[in-house]
Every structure is written in C-alpha cells, then in structure tokens.
C-alpha cells in the first residue's frame, strides 16, 4: 500500500472525523495517526476514548474536535465501555428500537491506557468476542501526565520516572510486546501500524473495522515532546523505527503472521536512537545491546511469518 506514494494522497478520503482546532503539540504523531484512522473509519463510527493526550487535546469543555459520536469516561476502561457501546447498539438494533446499520465501535487509548492500567478491561473485551476495534496509540510513555515510563517504554529510554542518571541507563526493561499479548487472545485481526506509512495505516484500520469480532491495531505514534526530537521529524522517526526493525509493521490474520514491509537490510538502530533526546545518553555498548535485541526479535517475527 505504501508504494502509492505520489498521487494517491489526493485521493485519500476527504472526510475528517477529527477536525482542526485541537490542542495536540506541534508535530504530534498521535494526532496524525488519529486523523488518518478517523478518515479510514468514516462517519458510521462511535469512538470510546481513554484519558490521555488524545482525550485532553480534543475535548476541553465546552469544545470538541470530534465529528463522530465520542465518549470519554475514564483512563483504564476503554475495553469495557466499548463493549457496552457495541452491546447497546446491537441489542437495540436486534429489538427494532433503532434501525439496523453497520456502526463501528472503536476504542482508542494510549500505551499506558492499554498495556498497563487498561490491560484487564482490554483482555476481557477481546476474550468476550465483542465486535469492536481497539486502537492503541503508542507513544511509549504516559505523555499526558509528563512523560512517565510505561511498560511500553523501550529499554534505555529516559523518562521522568525512569530517568537516566549516574547509575542508571533509564528504562531498564524491554518494551512489553502488546500486539503479541493481544494476538494470544486468538482474535481475528491484529496489526501494527505507523502514521509514517499512512495508507498502510488507513488500510489496517479499515480492515480492523470490517472484521467481525474483535480487532486490534497497535499504532506507533512518535511524540516530539516526550522523545525529544525536532517537531518536523515525526514522519522520519516513524520510518526509521520501521526500517531499523525497532517497530516492524505486520498483521496477524486468524493467527497467521504477515510482515508488511521487509527490507533487504535493516537500518542500524543507531540512526533511530541518535535522533532522539531520550536515548542520547546511551553508550556504544548499550546501543550494540539494543541492536542485538532488535535483530533477535525481528528474526523471531520473520520465523513466525514463515511458520504461520
């Protein structure tokens, strides 16, 4: 899909579910991703949103940036609220209280709202088989509250609660592999995406929305504020993450893995790390350590793609 790069942008859906006038930081990758996702979802969509940058930047009372019906309640319960939205609509349609219509129930949350505090609600909703789509906008920390670490923060990143210091390299744990955890629920569709690959992202969101049963798209969302890079580099940072194998783009359809972008040779992770302030302190040895880990994980993924 991404190969459609030159003229196709003129043909992208003109519809905007998320309209200008929001309060995202300049260069926010999450804002870009949500905009693309809402183009792919179209009008017939109800969004359930978690607390986090997404909610704070789009909803300050009495204004809203949403053209689609949208509900925010709390931080950790998107999976459950979206379950309720889906069931409420389905039950009323079945009982003839509202007209039959395909309406996408879509949950949206950050990496914290998904892989930490919201994991239980998400797991429950996936396991129960609700017909809904969950989009995780992964900016690799609790950005809204000031760049604290989450379980999705990568190894070596300096955040406000995993600061790099004289005796610490910053985050000491490896990023939790959420797409794999979700895939372990045996749901029909899981994918990873990144707004630096806009058509791939829209295609996956659309596929997820059309899937019957639970679908999940994990969207890598570069954050200039928290990752400390110049605001005009968001798209490039996303591409570097994908091309270096740090964040591979793949799909898991009914259990079978497919790598959407494979490269003859992965770019060195150094190119990706060195572009960001949060990794600036890393020594050559640590970068080498990360390089090995990325290659190992990438290989594992490729084996899985061949096996399934």
């Amino acid at each position, binding site marked *: 899909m991404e*190969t*459609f790069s*030159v003229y196709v942008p003129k*043909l992208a*859906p003109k519809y905007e579910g998320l309209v200008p006038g929001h309060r995202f930081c300049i260069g926010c990758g999450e804002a870009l991703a949500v905009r693309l996702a809402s183009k792919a979802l179209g009008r017939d969509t109800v969004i359930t949103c978690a607390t986090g940058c997404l909610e704070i930047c789009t909803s300050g009372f009495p204004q809203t940036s949403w053209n689609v019906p949208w509900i925010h309640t709390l931080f950790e319960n998107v999976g459950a609220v979206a379950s309720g939205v889906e069931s409420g609509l389905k039950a009323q349609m079945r009982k003839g209280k509202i007209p039959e219509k395909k309406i996408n129930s879509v949950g949206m949350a950050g990496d914290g709202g998904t892989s930490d505090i919201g994991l239980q609600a998400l797991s429950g909703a996936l396991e129960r088989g609700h017909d809904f789509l969950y989009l995780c906008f992964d900016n690799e920390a609790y950005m809204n509250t000031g760049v604290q670490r989450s379980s999705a923060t990568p190894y070596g990143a300096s955040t406000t609660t995993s600061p790099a210091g004289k005796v610490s390299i910053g985050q000491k744990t490896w990023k939790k592999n959420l797409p794999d955890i979700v895939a372990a629920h045996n749901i029909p569709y899981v994918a990873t995406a990144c707004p630096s690959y806009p058509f791939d992202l829209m295609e996956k969101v659309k596929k997820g929305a059309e899937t019957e049963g639970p679908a999940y798209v994990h969207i890598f969302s570069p954050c200039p504020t928290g990752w400390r890079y110049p605001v005009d580099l968001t798209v490039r940072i996303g591409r570097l993450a994908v*091309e270096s194998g740090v964040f591979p783009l793949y799909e898991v359809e009914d259990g079978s893995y497919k790598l959407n972008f494979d490269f*003859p*040779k992965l770019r060195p992770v150094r190119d990706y790390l060195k572009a960001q302030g949060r990794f600036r302190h890393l020594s050559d040895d640590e970068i080498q350590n990360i390089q090995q880990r990325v290659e190992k994980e990438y290989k594992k993924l490729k084996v899985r793609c061949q096996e399934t």
Partner: protein
Amino acid sequence: MKEVKLNIDGKRVQAKEGSTIVEAAREAGIRIPTLCHHEGISPIGSCRLCSVEISGDGKSKVVPACTQPIEEGLTVKTTTERVLKIRRRLIDRLLTRAPEAQVVQDLANEYGIKKAKTQDTEQKCVSCDLCCLCVRVCDEIVGMKAIGKPDGEKGNMPFLQNPKACIACGACAYVCPTGEIQMEDVGDTRIIHRWGRQEEYKLKKCSVCGSYFAPEVQLEYFKKKANLPDDYFDVCPDCRK
C-alpha cells in the same frame, strides 16, 4: 458558504451549495450506492447505480445523484420502486460483465439478485466494471493520460494496449473498485496486474540503504519535469539528509 436545505428519504438535510446529491446524502449518513464515483475525481454519472428520484413542482424524474447538484427544497427519494428497478437491472448487467468482482457480488446480494440472466461469451476479463475511474484518475490526477477510453460501441475492455505513458504510480490500482487492477512490489520489480496482463517496472535502488524505493520511469519523469540533477534520486527520501 451558503447552506442549502433539502429532503432526502424524509430526512431534513442541510449541505453546502454546489454539493451533489451523493455528497449531501453521505454527509447525512444516507448511503447511495455508486461504482464510478470517487470523491477526489470529477463525477461523470456513467454507472447510473446512484440513480435516485427527485421531485419538485409535482413532477418527478430519475437522475444520477453523483452529478445532480442540490437545490433548495428539493425532495429526493433514494429507494423508490422505480429506482430499485433500475438498480436491479444495472446490477444484473454488472454480474455478467464483472462476475468476479467483490463489489458487484455484494451489490447483487444486497439487491437480492441471484444469477445473471444474460451471458457474455467473448469476455476477456471477469472483474472490470467499465467504470473508467482508472482512465479518469490517470488523466485528471496524475496527468499522464496513460490509459485509453473504452470502446463504447462494443462494450469492450478499454485498455487493450499496454499503457505506454504509465509511470507506475498506482493511482489506478488505488481507485479501482473491483480489484481488477492490482499492484505489488516484488524485490526490484513493481508489477501492475490489469486486464489479464502483468506489466513490470524496474525499481530504483537506494545507494545508501539499498532498499528499492520507486519505479525508475517515475523518477525519470520527475527529474525531467522538475529539472532535477541527474543523481537526485540516487538516494531514497529516508536517506537524504
């Protein structure tokens, strides 16, 4: 911009002056089926699936909703018996023309049409619905006019010869509603599948990272058009500093 009020299927709808019925309906969440329509390309109203019945001053007529501009006080009905009859006939014909196309099958399902009554034996292609979106996108958006118009008389496949001016940008594959045109990159080659042919285009390799990033014909065209230095595309955009 001025807003125009009209009534679609009993629902009061408001839309910008100059919109078409299809646009106003979509804005209001009312679905009118289309095949040859794409919001990024000028409408031509050729597939006629979007036929709707409009009425003002006591008379009513059937028009294609994708080209019909809205007017103040217009009443539109999108699912009258007259309209449905037209659509069913069209879908029946489409089932003969492009029986393999998913969109056509979905439409047939939706309108309860089981099997095409007529059979076109000389058919070379089983998905193309002759909507001409590819022809129009290549002309209007890309500017290459690489794909020819169909031979309307015989209802033949439009595109019997290799489109020589093609720069392999994929816009035609992107807009194709039936999946007749598809595109993929395999190693150093871009392949466009259309009308039973496989057209191959060599991809340019980045001298830094080694990945294949765009078709050579396309890069040559850009260089000429924008007067760029000869080595401009030796590196891919991601490696360019």
